[in-house]
């Protein structure tokens, strides 16, 4: 998920030196994960597309003056975060209602999911992602961003601190609170689903998603640890 681990070299340095192929590869291989990044921060589907496009353009246009003072990953997410903040300021973005996110995503999934043997797996992946996004939306943005950069994008704390301009201790604290709240939220969600299934009449509830692949594995006990 990290922006450039599978690239032969820093895309912007290569671009500045006249080799656009690495940057093209970066665009092709990382568009979807960056769309996920913005979606988890709270962008609507179309907005996420716009933001990723804008990010690529900013990177591309800044290549001539690019001086690698940090890893490309850190630079990329610094620009990505700036684009997100700019967008929110410019369009006075209102937080997207969860119901809207869900409706949009369901529509996307209907059109994107292929009715082939892999479709069930796709649907399961979509539901997992949706659950995570719903819980992330409940976090303060600062914690959401730290979780995204640390857990999903796997950046070290020092780099996250540099990107966000806060001390490493703050990152540690935000990460702790973010992970704890996510564990609580996802655990409660699963417990609610299980209770609903137990109370329902008719055949026993069968989750389309294998329990092992659910976030946190439904362990409410994790909270007390």
């Amino acid at each position, binding site marked *: 998920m990290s922006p450039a681990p599978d690239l032969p070299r820093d895309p912007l340095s290569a671009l500045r030196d006249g080799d656009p192929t690495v940057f093209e590869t970066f665009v092709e291989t990382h568009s979807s*994960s960056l769309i996920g990044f913005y979606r988890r921060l709270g962008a609507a589907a*179309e907005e996420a597309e716009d933001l*990723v496009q804008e990010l690529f353009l900013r990177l591309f246009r800044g290549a001539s003056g690019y001086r690698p003072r940090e890893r490309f990953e850190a630079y990329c997410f610094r620009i990505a975060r700036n684009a997100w903040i700019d967008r929110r300021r410019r369009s*006075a973005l209102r937080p997207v209602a969860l119901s809207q996110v869900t409706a949009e995503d369901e529509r996307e999934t209907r059109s994107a999911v*292929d009715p082939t043997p892999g479709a069930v797996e796709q649907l399961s992946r979509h539901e997992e992602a949706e659950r995570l996004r719903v819980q992330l939306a409940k976090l303060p*943005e600062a914690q959401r961003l730290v979780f995204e950069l*640390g857990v999903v994008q796997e950046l070290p704390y020092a780099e996250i601190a540099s990107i966000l301009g806060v001390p490493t201790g703050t990152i540690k*604290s935000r990460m702790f609170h973010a*992970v704890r709240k996510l564990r609580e939220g996802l655990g409660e969600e699963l417990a609610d689903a299980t209770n609903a299934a137990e109370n329902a009449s008719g055949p026993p509830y069968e989750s389309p998603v294998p329990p092992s692949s659910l976030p*946190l594995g439904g362990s409410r006990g994790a909270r007390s640890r």
Partner: protein
Amino acid sequence: MNAFDPETDASPADPALSPDTPLRGADAAEAQRLEALLAGEAPSAGEPNGHEEGLAAELQRLRHAALPTAADEAAAVRVQTAFFAALEQDQATEPEVSSALARSGLAGDWARTLSNRPLVRLAAASLLVHLLALPVFAWWIASQRPPSSVQLSFSPAQKRTIESPERPERGPLTPADLGLEDLEGLTLLEPSEFRRRTRLGLASIEVPIPAQVGTEGDLERAVRAWLESGDGPQDTEDAEPRVVLVQLAAALDEDARTRENSSLGTSEVRMRLARAAGLPDATLSAPLQAVRMALLMRARLQGLELPDAYWKPKAPSGVEPRAALALATWDRRPVLLEVARSLERSRTESEPWRTWLEWADDALEPPLDGEPNAPSSR
């Protein structure tokens, strides 16, 4: 410690959510374990315990949940298509810098070599901007002159008339208002002729519109079908000029019901239509609705009479100024920049529901007393 940020942080009243609250005891130890796990370090001391393994597994599941979905992958394809198309446009601007250098006395290889250096590129771009700004400056100087019909002495009655003029009843804007006398009615000219006469660069596009178009939705469906057929913008040069801007704008309207039936994403539709209409930057920087408004504004400026419903903003937002700015950039018309500025002002004033068309009319009205155009309060 960083100061509390009310925009991004949770309420400081909730110590559990405040990043400034130092972690203590078990929480601090848990945070430490989390950091070590995320850094890929082996479990701290002794044998790995169940707790640590459980936490590692949960982190792994969270990562798994964040893997791109099918919808993300589909969106990624749209983004890549649009980005690479935009890149082509971006690269097409490079020769402008070289030619500016060539005009300033540097030519050939020197110009090419120097144009690769950031400072020289900056200087060349600055030169280009100044050259482009000259006509605007000349227009501004001209607009500062008092009207030739104003005399130095007036009778009191004349003076009152000048000081508090009756606002004349204005009809719709006509092509003549913009010096486009040759344009007539709803039909655009042949693309090449249109460009030659107006230098506005709008392509006329043939879209197989059904004979009976009931709603904008019908129209949008028709245009989308046309785009999906692959015969779209490529045919602009040879197309019969029978589609008007308002139809194109309607095609850009966001309509979730019709979008459901389309295999094209909004970004791609926007890109194709905006490119076909010759809107370069709006493709990327303006939302779909802004592109639509820009096209409607263009239609209005060409003298098209459209129902009020077309102009009424759905809610106070930044869309209208951005539409005007997109169009102003497109046309490089100072008067439209003034429209955009007026619109921007309107957002902070007490008339958020005033239509942007009224602002446009104000800005286009000739000045009565030598003052620069300014929006009046109604």
